[in-house]
């Protein structure tokens, strides 16, 4: 019975959609309260999953595996490890906050809006719990449509363009992924004699290097568009700027994480040789994303697009951490996925609050807001600092570990990535200064009301999480670590690397001729010698 808890968690929002359909569309208050209750219960279920989750066990938990389309080997296979657990909890929390944040700002098509959000929630949770590639793909695509409507119906002036751009970019990537999935399944069929989409079964399948390279490229492109990795990021600023607040929060908080989650769940374990081979390229792209995102963010006139470009930069950190392929880097990277969800989600919520009051987001329109809205300014400060990565806030923990990992891999990656941290302090604080300090120059800002009780309720849990993770991240790391170690063990199946069983350090092995195959990746010399002894 308890094994099905993931099913309840995934499909509870769909149940909510069915209930919402029964409510007449004029009764806005009932619709809002009902969807809030649904989202809240979903969150409670995810807390229950968190409580029942055994941090010591490695491997998947709460597994369900039932045949679905038997003739082609598709099964309904769910299960979570520490990484997916945390992302699910993040998803459900952000959904509740997103619904709260749209309470007064969405006035047309209320019913459709909340139905879209709940469907989106199911899609997102579904991606994180599926262990069957087909199921994964279905959930991955299912999210596309509610998001298309969220941006297209309730978005800003250029919403139609942004919505279709978002859909076409994602669709392009996912179709490539579909081909790769099919290839994997047929390959498995030719070896094992049965069809299977099971991720765990497919992971154990030996693939030649060229196969791995092609498949890695197909999956990586799909995921990189979602992350988004430079230069595939161009849909993101449009989508973010045009999306309603709730859409931005979910987009930045969860949807982007699905790309990195895909890397960690599929690309790394399934194609270890290709991962090692592509590592330098992805790392370089990540570093470019970090620096480029930060520099472009600096010159933005619109607060929301500033935050959007800062996302490109932060997600660059996550990608860099993933491809350091060492314990610190990966743990930091998973941590940073959560942190970015919290901080950027909070930033978008705050931007949404000020937008609701002033109906503009241009930095030049503001100034001296701290005097009229002191509470708002305080919350904004905390979130800004968390986004910069000040010690004792959540951002520090993740970024620090990623940088540690990056320096171990290659000093240059570390050096360039650090500049991203510095730039992020620049653009965030500069923006904060221009918006909050100085005299109130614009008369329209003089009569702004400070945060309402509802808005404070939205921010309090996020601020709590910011400090909790910043000060005491151990419970999270306890859950991340076994999962990350699993991933690293799977990567170490590649012939070109070797895993140190104690430190979980991956080192490059020299082949028979004694040459290191790829000179771009350098490892600490003493470790290399150690592996030879």
């Amino acid at each position: 019975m308890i094994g099905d808890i993931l099913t309840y968690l995934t499909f509870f929002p769909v149940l909510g959609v069915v209930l919402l359909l029964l409510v007449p569309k004029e009764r806005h208050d009932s619709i809002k309260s009902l969807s809030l209750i649904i989202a809240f219960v979903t969150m409670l279920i995810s807390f229950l999953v968190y409580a029942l989750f055994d941090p010591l066990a490695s491997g998947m938990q709460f597994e369900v595996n039932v045949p679905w389309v038997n003739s082609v080997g598709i099964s309904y296979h769910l299960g979570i490890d520490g990484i997916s657990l945390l992302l699910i909890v993040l998803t459900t929390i952000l959904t509740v906050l997103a619904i709260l944040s749209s309470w007064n700002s969405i006035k047309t098509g209320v019913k459709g809006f909340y139905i879209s959000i709940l469907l989106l929630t199911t899609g997102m949770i579904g991606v994180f719990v599926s262990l069957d590639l087909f199921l994964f793909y279905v959930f991955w695509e299912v999210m596309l449509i509610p998001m298309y409507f969220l941006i297209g119906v309730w978005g800003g002036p250029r919403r139609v363009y942004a919505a279709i751009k978002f859909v076409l970019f994602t669709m392009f990537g996912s179709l490539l992924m579909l081909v790769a999935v099919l290839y994997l399944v047929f390959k498995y069929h030719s070896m094992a004699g049965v069809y299977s989409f099971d991720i765990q079964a497919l992971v154990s399948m030996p693939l030649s290097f060229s196969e791995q390279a092609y498949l890695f490229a197909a999956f990586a492109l799909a995921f990189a568009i979602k992350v988004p990795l430079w230069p595939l990021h161009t849909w993101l600023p449009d989508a973010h700027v045009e999306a309603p607040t709730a859409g931005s929060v979910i987009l930045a908080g969860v949807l982007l994480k699905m790309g990195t989650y895909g890397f960690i769940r599929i690309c790394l374990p399934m194609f270890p040789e290709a991962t090692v081979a592509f590592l330098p390229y992805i790392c370089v792209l990540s570093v470019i994303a970090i620096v480029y995102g930060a520099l472009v963010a600096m010159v933005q006139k619109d607060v929301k697009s500033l935050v959007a470009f800062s996302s490109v930069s932060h997600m660059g950190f996550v990608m860099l951490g993933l491809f350091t392929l060492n314990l610190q880097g990966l743990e930091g990277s998973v941590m940073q996925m959560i942190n970015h969800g919290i901080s950027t989600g909070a930033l978008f919520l705050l931007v949404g609050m000020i937008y609701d009051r002033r109906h503009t987001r241009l930095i030049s329109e503001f100034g001296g807001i701290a005097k009229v809205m002191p509470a708002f300014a305080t919350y904004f400060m905390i979130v800004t600092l968390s986004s910069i990565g000040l010690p004792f806030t959540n951002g520090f923990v993740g970024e620090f570990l990623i940088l540690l990992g990056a320096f171990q891999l290659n000093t240059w990656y570390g050096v360039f990535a650090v500049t991203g941290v510095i730039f992020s302090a620049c653009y965030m604080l500069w923006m904060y200064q221009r918006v909050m300090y100085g005299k109130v120059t614009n008369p329209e800002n003089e009569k702004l009301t400070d945060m309402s009780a509802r808005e404070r309720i939205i921010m309090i849990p996020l601020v709590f999480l910011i400090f909790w993770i910043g000060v005491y991240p151990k419970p999270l790391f306890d859950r991340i670590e076994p999962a990350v170690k699993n991933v690293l063990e799977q990567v170490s199946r590649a012939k070109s690397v070797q895993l140190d069983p104690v430190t979980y350090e991956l080192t490059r092995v020299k082949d028979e001729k004694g040459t290191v195959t790829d000179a771009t990746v350098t490892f600490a010399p003493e470790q290399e010698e150690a592996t030879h002894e």
Partner: protein
Amino acid sequence: MEVQLPEVSLRMMAPELFLFVWALVVITFDVVTKRAQGESVGYLTMVGIAITGGILAITGEGPGFGNMFYNDPMAIFFKIIFLGAAFMAVGSSFGLTKQKIVNHRGEFFGLMLLSTVGMMFLASANELLTIWIGLELTTIPLFVLAAFFKDNKLSVESGLKYFIVGAFSSAVMVYGLSFLYGLTGTTDLLQMKLNLATVHLTFRNIGVILIAAITMLIAGIGFKLGLPPFHQWVPDVYEGAPTPVAAFLSIGSKAAGLAAFAKIFVNGLSAFHGVEMAPNDWGKLAGIVAIAALILGNTVAIRQTNIKRMLGYSSIAQAGYIMIGMVAQSALGLSAVAFYIFAYMFANMGAFAVVTAFEDKTGSCEIKSYAGLAKTSPMLSICMTIFLLSLAGIPPLAGFLAKYFVFAAAIKQASLEGGQWLYWVVGAGLITAVFSLYYYANVIKQMYFSKDDSPYRVGLQAPAMLVVLIGLAGVLVFGLYPEPVLRFAGEVPSMFGFVSP
């Protein structure tokens, strides 16, 4: 040849015979009641189709008339599709017969049934001439149906165009068939397969005659399917013909053409597929045509402003996707083709039912006039959205699984030796699928993203409602639980002599 007892043969043809008689009954009923009965003619037609379905269920499998007529699983599967398409086309014609076709309701529905009889006959045909006759029986009533608005210039143009192109393509096709007969001395598909193999083994080279025959057959059937470069009639006919006829055309006549293609090429000429026979291989030729259909259909559809023309081009593209499964030339590919048409039927007939209802109400087929429809007719817009998303292949709808299976079949075949070229077909299908999402989403955009309310409030009559609900149920149920249909579709290639995978 062993002589079959007539009873047995007739029993196998019971559904066709019944439907034929019923078509006459429908026409007679309309005349006898002095054309005063508004809706009952339509209901009578729908009942007849339902009864035919029942008869089909109890007829079972088996041969009739020697080897010329054979009820194999493929025939039964396709007959279900034909009956389903006819049922849904009739169901969405009620508004039309009420307003525009007042004096010829019986003929309208009767011709639709007669065309269905032709399709069903074709599905069971097991021999070149029977296949050809089946195709003719299918298309001749459709020529008349396309031109049914005899006072409307567009409709007459579409009927004439369809007739000329159709007659020409039939001629080309029968010319190609005559070459095949000349080469092999038989019209029986199985015998033809064996004779061709013998000729090939004896002479190691069959020469230009077969290439000419293959080219002509691809051209002939390509016309029926609307595959480029033989597609020019499609958008004009879709635009001019009565909308339910266009819908029927897009499923029924397309499925019929595909059945003919499968029978002649995948079965009869399968000996011709292989690495050592590369120059005579029809697969690559069909593959090129499929790629052309995908690219042309999906790109030109983007520019359309009329929803019927858009759906016309989209149907060209969909034919391209179906051909991907066909050129895989495997058991899996053929099952995928069958499943594709099945899933496509629900989405396309549903979408056309909505378009018909909208046209009946507003008289407009412009995509622009759908603006803001979501505000005034929310349920209709949701249904239309689901149909369009299924056509675009978004999970968890049936259209996604359909696309998925044709790609799967092609990729499986591509991973075998000599099949690498299939990756090009798959690649074209994938990239153009992104385009297709654009134009389908364009309609959704009009319905939902407009800030203004639509001036129209479109409701559905009971039969059209039934059609939309069937479409919706099909798209959702077979998207989430395709197992039963897949199992049935898996039996479709059972008569094709593939080595089981």
